[in-house]
């Protein structure tokens, strides 16, 4: 897994105004590891989300930007200073009610979010991410989509086109209803327009999974100490049938259900452990190990493709892991150059212990109701 010294993306300073429970904060980060500790509900996750917001132009948790405004405020601002390839530059994301969100990279406005995404790579591991494993197929597609979109621009373009066309086609199917049959010629045209992007998505997902799987399995072995065999299988309508003929065969069903019943929007990635689905059978610790491995494998591919070590956000990841797995995870983090890392933990002692074990230069902060104080971990 070790690479020939990739560059590292570093966030050296962060200023937030009116972001979630932070009225104002101005923090200097360590280029290696930053620890945040504090009781429940103090703002640890919010701080990581501010970093995510800065790098991706959107929240990791909230699709509605308005929810990010500190209660009662009508604007927010997140500013960060980055170092990349020996260059230092600011990024600012501004949001004001009634106005379009604005992103400034090096004082230049960013026109389209899709041009910005992938510039400041980062990987976020949050406790709720176990939904990736526990929930329906959508969460897993999203995970693959967000990984692949960061790696390949044509994938992102195909994804946007496919989703747009799918939405149009589904709406058209709904517009039929009652006695009015939807325009069949138009249904067919949408299917034909979807064919090319569907193929792009299918081929990328298939090829990517075969590269992803061994990396993922290695990481899982490292963290679990070789305990369980894990497997991911790509499931797609397109494994069985060509796109157009598949859609054509489902047309009657489409008309009845008023949605498109064949296509890559139904793809899934089946997650197995010891030949059983992880979902109902895996323990909490196993699910968490599975999740962390998925995310660290994602990290590996982003780093490899961009030749830059992304920022790594680890929110509460040591919870639910037994001490041996924590040790193995820490050893893994030490062995593999992970660039700049942000770690949260509610237990200050556990965090101090982790800091000692990792032994790397760090800053530590105590989070208390939306304000931060730098501390020494003892």
């Amino acid at each position, binding site marked *: 897994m070790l690479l020939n010294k990739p560059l590292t993306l570093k966030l050296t300073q962060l200023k937030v105004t009116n972001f979630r429970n932070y009225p104002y904060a101005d923090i200097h980060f360590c280029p290696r590891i930053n620890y945040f500790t504090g009781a429940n509900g103090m703002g640890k996750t919010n701080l990581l989300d501010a970093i995510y917001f800065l790098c991706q132009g959107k929240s990791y948790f909230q699709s509605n930007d308005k929810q990010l405004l500190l209660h009662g405020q009508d604007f927010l601002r997140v500013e960060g200073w980055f170092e990349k390839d020996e260059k230092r530059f600011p990024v600012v994301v501004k949001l004001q009610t009634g106005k379009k969100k604005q992103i400034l990279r090096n004082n230049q406005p960013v026109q389209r979010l899709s041009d910005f995404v992938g510039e400041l790579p980062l990987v976020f591991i949050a406790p709720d991410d176990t939904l990736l494993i526990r929930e329906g197929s959508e969460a897993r597609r999203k995970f693959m989509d967000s990984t692949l979109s960061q790696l390949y621009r044509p994938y992102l373009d195909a994804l946007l*086109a496919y989703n*747009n*066309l799918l*939405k*149009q*086609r589904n*709406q*058209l199917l*709904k*517009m039929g209803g009652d006695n009015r049959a939807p*325009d069949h*010629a*138009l249904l067919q*045209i*949408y299917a*034909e*327009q979807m064919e090319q992007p569907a193929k792009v998505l299918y081929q990328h997902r298939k090829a990517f999974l075969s590269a992803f799987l061994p990396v993922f399995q290695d990481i899982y072995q490292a963290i679990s100490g070789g305990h369980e065999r894990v497997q991911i299988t790509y499931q797609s309508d397109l494994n069985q049938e060509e796109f157009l003929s598949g859609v054509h065969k489902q047309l009657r069903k489409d008309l009845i259900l008023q949605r498109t019943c064949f296509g890559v929007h139904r793809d899934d990635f089946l997650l197995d452990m010891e030949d059983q689905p992880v979902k109902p059978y895996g323990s909490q610790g196993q699910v968490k190990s599975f999740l962390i491995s998925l995310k660290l494998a994602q990290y590996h591919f982003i780093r490899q493709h961009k030749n830059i070590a992304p920022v790594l956000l680890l929110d509460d990841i040591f919870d639910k892991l037994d001490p041996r797995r924590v040790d193995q995870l820490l050893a893994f983090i030490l062995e593999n150059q992970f660039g700049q890392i942000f770690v949260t933990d509610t237990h200050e002692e556990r965090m101090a212990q982790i800091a000692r074990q990792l032994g790397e230069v760090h800053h530590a902060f105590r989070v208390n109701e939306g304000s931060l104080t730098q501390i020494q971990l003892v």
Partner: protein
Amino acid sequence: MNFSSKLLESGVDALSSLPSIGKKTALRLALFLLKQEPGFTEEISNALLKMRRNMRECQRCHNMSDEAICAICADRRRDQQVICLVESIRDIIAIEETQQFKGVYHVLGGLISPIEGVGPGDLTIDALVERVSTGQIQEIIMALSPTIEGDTTIYYISRKLKDLPVKISTIARGVAFGGDLEYADELTLGRSILARVPYQNQGD
């Protein structure tokens, strides 16, 4: 905004109901009108009323028109065998600015987009097919915006015209203009109409 006059307030409200006119601009306009002779406002109001009441839609191309047939369709010097298909009247104005196009137009009235409640039946597609099948139309240039909705619409219409002896071309799409035709600078637009390419009917 706090007005001491109900009359001023309702005047400002009326003006600010226009697109891209905010309250501040509306107030500036209202105060300007109040400074002029009453006849000035009357002239403007009458011109607007007359425009609104008497404006018609060209029976042939659905352009705005003073008569049953618009000035462009009625112009004998223009090539009636070449139709440039556009989304809206604003596109006609943009293309006419370039002075590069000597044919006639057909205004579609939008793009196919079920999400926005626009189906083929809401556009002037049938009228276009009718125009092509009865007239001596030789070529249709699809000058629609380079978006997925634009693609769908072109694709759909070209299917409808499949069995008619008409050449279909598209303007060089996706180059040099940022989305809508309206924003294309005149030169690029003029050039792209001249440099149109035959439409490749996908799928057939």
